[in-house]
């Protein structure tokens, strides 16, 4: 065991050294560059680090210094985040740059998350899922694998993640002055109308911008959107709901989630979950932004219509042919992305998803092996990684075959 740890440590150091780059010209893209295993150092007072791990649910903030690629940011604020990923041994962390200095940013970022891959033994699923979304032009956080050091000692494998906040909104939508909400899972919910009491919507959508505004300002358009989704006539469904929802973006996102087998997303096994909702400033139009994709890339045969009947919005949207067309087109686009060959390769090469999986696996493996606080063994890590590799090899074919079979006017291709 000891020799295995030493080997893992040596591999980790080698991986970090091999990818070491000069400190010049650093941007957020460099931080989220998943072509390398990033190294992030945190310095936290011993007492604070103990308290943070002792009470991860407290939400208490603790001061720290952060260093990445030669740049040190002093006086950042750390707190534990997560619900399903809540862990005392290996806490998922949120790093705020502006808590103790109003308006301060790092590389243009106000906040980053250090996700602990607590529910994903492979450590790959979120990286690959968000990369798939981004490759399809969908709004999604940037991510990169990280070797996290705490107080000069290697702590564990993490994923540095772009937080969904004002800088993210500005990057994705070109504006960030609207209303951003984080979905809070309380119980199984399928976009049913919850009534005219705005408090019902406040229990599932926490404001992340304009937090101090009245409940009316925050939730009247949300209530109106969900009421319209539920109560608009079939004939009026698309024009009425389009006033509140970007239908094309929604259909493409749920298609991408089906393709990547996201079973805990907008149409997942537990109802609506893991997303942010953003309403543009001075408009009633809403956008869904995916978050937390640790449950994807599991079932190779994950059905493309999972959750369609239960979710009111999806059930009604799939009854509208133009929206159905958008959905299946996006599925086929995802399948083509998964299997797209390496244009630079002289010989036939694995598809894009498999190539990305194996490349990231090589980066992640030494950090995972050296990680003594992960909640799974190295064998479990290897088994999880193998599952993802298999998914990456064959999911494109499955999605393509199914999409063509169900697409209106389509038929399976053998």
């Amino acid at each position, binding site marked *: 065991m000891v020799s295995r740890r030493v080997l893992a440590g040596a591999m980790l150091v080698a991986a970090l050294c091999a990818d070491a780059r000069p400190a010049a010209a650093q941007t957020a893209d460099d931080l989220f560059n998943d072509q390398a295993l990033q190294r992030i150092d945190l*310095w*936290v*007072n*011993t*007492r*604070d680090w*103990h*308290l943070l791990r002792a009470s991860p649910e407290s939400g208490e903030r603790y*001061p*720290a*210094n952060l260093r990445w690629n030669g740049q040190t940011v*002093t*006086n950042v*604020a750390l707190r534990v985040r997560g619900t399903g990923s809540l862990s005392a041994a290996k806490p998922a962390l949120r790093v705020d740059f502006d*808590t*103790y*200095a*109003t308006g*301060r940013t790092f590389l243009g970022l106000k906040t980053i998350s250090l996700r602990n891959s607590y529910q994903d033994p492979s450590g790959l699923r979120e990286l690959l899922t968000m990369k798939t979304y981004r490759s399809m032009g969908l709004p999604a956080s940037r991510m990169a694998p990280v070797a996290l050091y705490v*107080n*000069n000692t290697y702590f564990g494998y993490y994923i540095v993640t772009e937080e969904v906040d004002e800088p993210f909104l500005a990057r994705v939508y070109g504006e960030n002055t609207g209303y951003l909400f984080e979905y809070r899972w309380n119980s199984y919910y399928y976009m049913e109308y919850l009534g005219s009491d705005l408090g019902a919507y406040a229990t599932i959508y926490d404001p992340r911008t304009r937090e101090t505004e009245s409940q009316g300002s925050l939730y009247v358009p949300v209530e109106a959107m969900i009421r319209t989704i539920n109560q608009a006539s079939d004939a009026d469904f698309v024009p009425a709901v389009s006033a509140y929802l970007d239908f094309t973006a929604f259909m493409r996102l749920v298609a991408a989630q089906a393709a990547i087998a996201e079973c805990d997303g907008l149409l997942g096994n537990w109802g609506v979950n893991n997303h942010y909702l953003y309403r543009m400033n001075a408009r009633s139009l809403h956008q869904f932004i995916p978050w937390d994709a640790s449950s994807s890339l599991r079932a190779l045969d994950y059905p493309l219509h999972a959750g369609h009947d239960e979710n009111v919005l999806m059930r009604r949207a799939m009854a509208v042919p133009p929206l159905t067309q958008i959905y299946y087109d996006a599925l086929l686009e995802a399948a083509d992305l998964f299997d797209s060959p390496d244009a630079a390769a002289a010989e036939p090469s694995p598809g894009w998803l498999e190539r990305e999986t194996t490349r990231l696996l090589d980066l992640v493996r030494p950090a995972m092996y050296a990680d003594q606080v992960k909640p799974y063994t190295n064998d479990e890590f290897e088994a999880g990684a193998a599952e993802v590799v298999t998914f990456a090899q064959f999911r494109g074919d499955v999605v393509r075959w199914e999409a063509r079979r169900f697409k209106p006017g389509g038929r399976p291709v053998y």
Partner: protein
Amino acid sequence: MRASFSIAGVLVAAMLGAPHAAAQTDPAAATSGASSPPLSWTSLESAPLTPTGAPPPPNAAKKNGFVWDNRPSLRYGDWFQLDLRALLEGQVRSVDPDVAGEGTVFEWSRRRMGIQGSVTKYVQYEVDYGFDKANEDSAEWRDVFVNVRPATFAQVQGGKFKIPFGYERLTGPRNLDFVYRSRVSDALTPGRSIGAMAHGRALNRLLRYAVGVFEDDGDQPPEIEALEPLPDEAPEPGQEGRTWAARATLAPLRLTSLPGKYNSLEVGGAYTRGTIPEGRNHLQGETVFGGEFFDRQYYTKGPRTRFGLEASWAIGPASLAAEYIVSREAREGQGVGNEGQVDNDLPEIEGRGWYVAGTWVVTGENRDGGVSPKRPLLQGGFGAVEITARYEQLRFASAGPPDEPPSRSPRAANVAPNGDRAWTVGVNWYVNRWVKVRFNLINETLDDPELGPAPGSSSLRTMVAQFGIGF
């Protein structure tokens, strides 16, 4: 509250109606305040009153049993003396901007009763009990001490009393020139503690000194908020360590041939050193009305030191006073760490401030030893009127690395600094020797209003009128 008003009314009526002769029964005290030594260094409020231990005035000295000598007193020759003391002060205050939304408020600022006296000429004592702040929940024992004086230059005092630091802090409320002490006195001086002190004066009062040790760092800093120990950590007592204090003043003009009313200039310095357990900083900046402009959000641990310089001079009807005080709190092991050290030491948090104050009794009474009106109200005159002015500054910061931006992080090397500059102008009306009315107009300016009680408003104005009666 109603009882307090009633007591105040009775006291006012009694004091205003007191016969003129009563106010004149202590001619020595009225005219020779400069030569009347206070009961102790730390109880200067007794300065204008007949000092314990000093030879009693002729009329009173001859009487045994109960006598009225500016206050109720019980005396048996030189063997025993017990004076009853009382002080009641209330104030009406208005603040702009009205952050608390209170409007104009009335509050009792001090309600005290006590005794002081002597047993033989070698032992003096004082006991003082009451409320000293508005909205205090309960009264407390304030000064409770015994002073043994085998010789003027070698005295020993023990009990609870003010740690010898800060000219204005050591000045009793009756003798303050302003409604509020300066910000620097409020924030950086230690106040009372239990301890023992050697003190005295020598060389014909050219030199005065005090050296003492106290069980903690006084009652003026906010209370300790000790942290709970971690599981693998030995529990700390969570109490302040002992504080050592020393103070010395010189009256250099006593070496000259100037008349007594001009040679009262005193210059001095003081130092304290104590230890504080791990917890939030005690150096706290508050505006006059209690709004925080430098909060208790930084972790500290280790020595707390103070250094003060002072000067005071009463020149006939005028007076000047100035102080400069620096207080530092260590932050041992409170940093987040760096490549070379986990839990590194942080630069000390420093509070630094000063004030300059001046007064002038326009009705001509002498300032030294306290103003005693020559012609009290309802006794042939209007009392004494004095105008006052003060300028002051108090600032908090830490000396972190210059390349690190200031931060509100509890473990910041460079804490977010802030400061308060204030000027005060006022009028004091000495109705008679017992009743005093003060009116102050105060303007405060914060360096960083965003860290203050009224973000966006850098200037705070306070008007306050205080009525006080005491004997």
